[in-house]
């Protein structure tokens, strides 16, 4: 049966008003940067602390340490014993977590707003000092190993491509090593390592504190001063550049996955420094034009027409969040395909579609509908106090501008078809890195 002809006229893509979340900031004498954003619409609050250290800062021999250390931050602090941090938060109706990224480590609580001061106290307490025993360190090494087993070792496609791509794409240890950690490195980690890491990277001046939700700004300023103000100022490490030369020829590697039933392939290209959003956002839009939904270039071609793939995703940044990493960072495509489709067919098809976009460009209509959905998805994310707090924190930490939370939809709207076309033209065959995943064991 032939598909119905596309006779309908395209509707004009929707636009949204710019958000106007109020933002206040202060910097304490010890260097802690603070962002406050009141919103009385629900009686909840998010408190987030972002430390400017991530997997890239791990020294050789200590792979996975940034993440292990994140676990240790829940094991006790100046005035709190093990598990008390959790019980204070959850036992007062809140949720909490922490996560380790390539360039930062974050900690947050989302709580009923009557617990705002409590959450600030808890974060201040572990910024003041961390208190880990050998027993708790051993325990958390075992927990982290089990985290790696469940997410990587006992899982098909585990770590694909976020752990498997960096060693192919990058050359420098900082960028290429396994951020979850080698078991040998994890097991040899010591309390001295932990104290040293805390002293060096967890200085107040190396952190951003963000409070979003049902708060009185003046009252919270007082609490912040009261709980964080007397944490001594410490030297803030100068963040090194992790930049490394761009690949000048195609890089290729193959991994075998004995748990995977079908092949997959990941492609990566280096993109411009994300700190400058005007040159970076066209790539973020490009990923959507190529892979977001049935009307995207690669999905329409490979899922609907050729049936050469079963799943396609495209995104910026190893962890899938375009705005949370600094330079260097990749544009990634991940394609799962049937065994009957040779990987070269997949690569050729991807290359054809990217080349076509790079030479012929895209219509204003295609761009507008792509941006319309990106904007809606973004607004949905920042509807939650936590989504807003995490977004503001990264913007403040990496770009000194929490206000970008309001400005991002406008910046997306300014991206032009020419910019997206130009971005596509840089994703060439000779600058790509290709990682094939083959099911089964090596022959």
């Amino acid at each position, binding site marked *: 049966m032939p598909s*119905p002809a596309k006779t309908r006229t*395209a509707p004009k893509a929707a636009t949204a008003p710019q958000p106007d979340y109020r933002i206040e900031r202060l910097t304490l004498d010890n260097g802690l940067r603070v962002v406050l954003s009141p919103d009385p619409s629900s*009686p909840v609050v998010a408190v987030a602390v972002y430390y400017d250290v991530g997997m890239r800062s791990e020294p050789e021999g200590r792979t996975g340490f940034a993440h292990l250390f994140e676990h240790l931050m829940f094991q006790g602090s100046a005035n709190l014993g093990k598990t008390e941090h959790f019980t204070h938060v959850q036992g*007062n109706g809140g949720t909490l977590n922490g996560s380790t990224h390539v360039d930062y480590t974050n900690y947050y609580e989302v709580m009923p707003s009557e617990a705002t001061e409590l959450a600030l106290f808890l974060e201040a307490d572990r910024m003041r000092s961390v208190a880990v025993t050998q027993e708790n360190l051993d325990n958390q090494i075992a927990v982290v190993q089990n985290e790696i087993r469940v997410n990587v070792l006992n899982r098909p496609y585990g770590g694909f491509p976020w752990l498997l791509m960096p060693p192919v794409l990058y050359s420098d240890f900082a960028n290429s090593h396994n951020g979850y950690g080698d078991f040998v490195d994890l097991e040899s980690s010591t309390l001295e390592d932990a104290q040293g890491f805390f002293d060096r990277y967890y200085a107040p001046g190396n952190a951003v504190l963000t409070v979003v939700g049902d708060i009185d700004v003046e009252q919270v300023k007082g609490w912040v001063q009261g709980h964080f103000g007397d944490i001594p100022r410490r030297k803030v490490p100068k963040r090194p550049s992790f930049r490394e030369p761009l690949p000048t020829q195609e890089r290729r590697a193959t991994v075998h996955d004995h748990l995977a039933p079908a092949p997959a392939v990941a492609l990566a290209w280096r993109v411009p420094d994300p700190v400058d959003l005007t040159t970076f956002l066209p790539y973020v839009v490009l990923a959507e034009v190529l892979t977001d939904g049935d009307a995207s270039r690669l999905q329409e071609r490979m899922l609907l027409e050729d049936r050469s793939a079963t799943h396609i995703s495209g995104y910026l940044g190893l962890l899938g969040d375009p705005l949370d990493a600094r330079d260097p960072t990749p544009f990634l495509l991940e394609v799962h395909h049937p065994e009957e489709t040779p990987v070269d067919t997949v690569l050729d098809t991807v290359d054809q579609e990217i080349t076509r976009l790079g030479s012929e460009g895209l219509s204003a209509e295609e761009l507008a509908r792509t941006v319309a959905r990106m904007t809606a998805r973004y607004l949905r994310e920042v509807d939650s106090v936590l989504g807003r707090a995490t977004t503001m924190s990264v913007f403040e930490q990496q770009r000194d501008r929490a206000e970008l939370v309001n400005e991002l939809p406008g910046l997306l709207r300014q991206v032009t078809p020419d910019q997206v076309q130009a971005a596509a033209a840089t994703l060439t065959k000779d600058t790509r890195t290709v990682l094939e995943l083959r099911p089964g064991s090596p022959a």
Partner: protein
Amino acid sequence: MTTVEKRPVPPLAKPRTAKLPSVAERTLENGLRVLAVRRPGVPLAELRLRIPFAGPSGRSGRSFTAQASLLGDTLLSGTDQRDAAQLAADVQALGGQLSASTDADRLGFGGSVLVGGLPGLLGILGEVLTGASYPKREVLGERDRLVQELAIYRSQAAVVAREALLRRLYGDHPYGRELPSAEEVEDVKPSSLRTLHAKRVAPGGSILTIVGDLPPNKAIAHVEAALSGWTASSKAYDTPRLPSTPDQPALLLDRPGAVQTTLRMAASAPSRADADYAPFVLANLVFGGYFSSRWVANIREDKGYTYSPHAQVEHPPAGSRVTISADVSTPTTAPALLETLYELGRVATTAVTQGELDQARRYAVGSLALGTSTQAGLASTLSQLAGAGLGVEYLRDYPKQLAAVTVEDALAAGSRYLAPNRLTTVLVGDVDQVQAPLRTLVDLELE
């Protein structure tokens, strides 16, 4: 050494309770029940549509599951007016997203859109509900893709364990097989999807929930304009009654060389409307339902056997259940099961402390508040409640029920629902390494 004075933990401020959302409701002439709530914040609207879609037990139920799965995957593959790509482009242009899926009880649509695009999205939804065309080429393509996806899905230990657990709990009831087999999918014909759609995709008994930055009466008017033409009728199909679960030994499935064992245990649990529900929730939280629980403290924070143990309650309409899950390192499999049985036995036979109970209670109340603080969270919550026959008052009444639970109530619920001898157990791991130690604790069945 200097003594540092402990800093006091600050007290809580006076709680500010969220206002109960005001829900406008109307049942359209075609039988569709519409709920709408205004929730400003972001200029979006969320929609959730639930269409009863239960299949029968037994052999015919298996082919129904396959058809229903593929129907969910191809509902948006084209209508008499637009092909799949055009449909997707038009949804996108509204700043919208729309997806469909089926489970053992219902066909569900979820969507969100820039609020000005709500009429447009509802129009597309109406077009799909009344005119999904299931084009042969798309259906055959999605059929192949579903087969591939099922293979990938089933390569995960967690999925293997869940499927085995549900089969053991529910046998040949639809809940016993959430997913079709590859063969059952390959047997589905495009024409059978059109027949199934005509027979079952009907407004009577269906519920549409809209939460967004617009007045509820306006939302309802948009729905009426877009969906009044949806007039299919269907008889009522209730999910079959659940069979009783027989006593069975623990099932151990082999995953040769696995570095972890996937442990799952489950049993029936009270529904939200049951008087036992609030005491059960609190007993379960104290046992293992949140991070600050005894089980997590024991097998993770004390012994390091696992990363993310949790006890979760699900509410399929024919019967709620509690499932406890932990992926434990292979050498600690038997010790982890021992501690799990111990903690279950403890909450079933000895009273929790008042402190444990109060802490769990505050967590349960707080979670409800956090979960309904966004448009998307409120829409999902109201839709789920409506599917269970509960209204928005539940958001007000449930905290009161939690407040009334005593230590004695929690013990009664713990012994009634969390006693280790009533849970069905499945383990997926390396049989050679874990079998002998496990046999010292429980009877085992190997497949």
